[in-house]
């Protein structure tokens, strides 16, 4: 294998999924987070998720062996061993800005940094390092082990061979890349967010209730999930934030958030995580 030890920075939902997938495909993982409690929870959840792998395909024979390949730590100096780094910390620019100089200092020169983000500028993230040609975006989808394709983002300075190596890295996790250029929202969010927003306008205008809107996408278009259930899953506060970011970036009124979306966020109806959004969750 070209990449044997992978640094995974941030052990939230996305970091856990990335770490699990890497370890399940034979790589060694150094999973880092500031919080020991989050690392413990990550290990438990990865173990549970590995057990459920058989639901969606081939069951994993030796789960303890997979877990043994994951080392968790709060010390970023551990990244000196990494052949490739995937950064998954919360999508707050100032948090990410604090960590990249540390990664840049600890990691060997030439080691690639993949920023797992759905919205932040890859070119800006790259500017926080002394290796902007070795930085690219990898927008993994949730749940990571089950999603075969990753939206890969090329920043202004990203070198061709960085992208080539990123493809090799992803192939080691049995995933493929769709490479896009760096503009706000990339492809995924730039198209998805206005779609969810428009679905909310439709509800606000009483064209149809949420159930009907989503049924049309699921049963007529064959989407696995309707736009409103997707909004509930992502979190309506995140949807609002993403739309505000797109609106600010492009200054285009097509990204203006629907008033009903604002009202729901103000009311604390954030979707699945709060038990209620456009649908109710027990």
């Amino acid at each position, binding site marked *: 294998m070209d990449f044997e030890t992978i640094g995974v920075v941030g052990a939230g939902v996305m970091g856990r999924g990335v770490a699990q997938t890497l370890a399940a495909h034979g790589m060694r993982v150094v999973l880092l987070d500031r919080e020991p409690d989050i690392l413990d929870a990550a290990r438990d959840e990865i173990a549970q998720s590995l057990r459920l792998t058989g*639901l969606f395909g081939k069951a994993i024979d030796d789960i303890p062996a997979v877990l043994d390949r994951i080392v968790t730590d709060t010390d970023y100096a551990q990244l000196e061993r990494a052949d490739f780094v995937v950064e998954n910390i919360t999508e707050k620019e100032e948090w990410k800005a604090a960590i990249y100089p540390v990664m840049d200092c600890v990691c060997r020169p030439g080691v690639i940094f993949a920023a797992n983000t759905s919205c932040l500028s890859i070119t800006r993230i790259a500017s926080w390092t002394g290796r902007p040609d070795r930085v690219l975006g990898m927008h993994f989808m949730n749940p990571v082990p089950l999603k075969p394709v990753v939206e890969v983002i090329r920043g202004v300075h990203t070198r061709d061979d960085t992208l080539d190596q990123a493809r090799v890295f992803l192939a080691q996790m049995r995933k493929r890349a769709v490479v896009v250029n760096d503009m706000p929202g990339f492809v995924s969010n730039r198209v998805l967010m206005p779609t969810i927003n428009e679905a909310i306008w439709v509800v606000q205008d009483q064209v149809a209730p949420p159930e009907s809107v989503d049924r049309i996408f*699921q049963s007529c278009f064959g989407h696995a999930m309707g736009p409103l259930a997707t909004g509930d*899953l992502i979190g309506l506060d995140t949807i609002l934030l993403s739309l505000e970011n797109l609106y600010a970036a492009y200054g285009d009124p097509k990204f203006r958030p629907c008033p009903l979306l604002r009202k729901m966020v103000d009311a604390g109806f954030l979707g699945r995580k709060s038990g209620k959004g456009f*649908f109710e*969750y027990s």
Partner: protein
Amino acid sequence: MTSEIRAAIRGFVLAFVKDDLLDDDENMFELGYVNSLFAMQLVMFVEKTYGFSVPRDDLKLSNFQSIDAIVALVEERLGSAR
């Protein structure tokens, strides 16, 4: 006992599926109503509610694709534990 299990499972499923007309033998995944995240939540709901761990060989989608299939799995596990 069976009717209680069926009602509990139907209640959990319908909270996600939002279709009162869903028949107990219909495949929720083929209907496009639910996805992989739901499948995982369903397994955890069943394990927590009925206090057993689904063995590896039974962890397959066909055992969770319809309300009938889930009820059968739960009854078999509860029966074999007795």
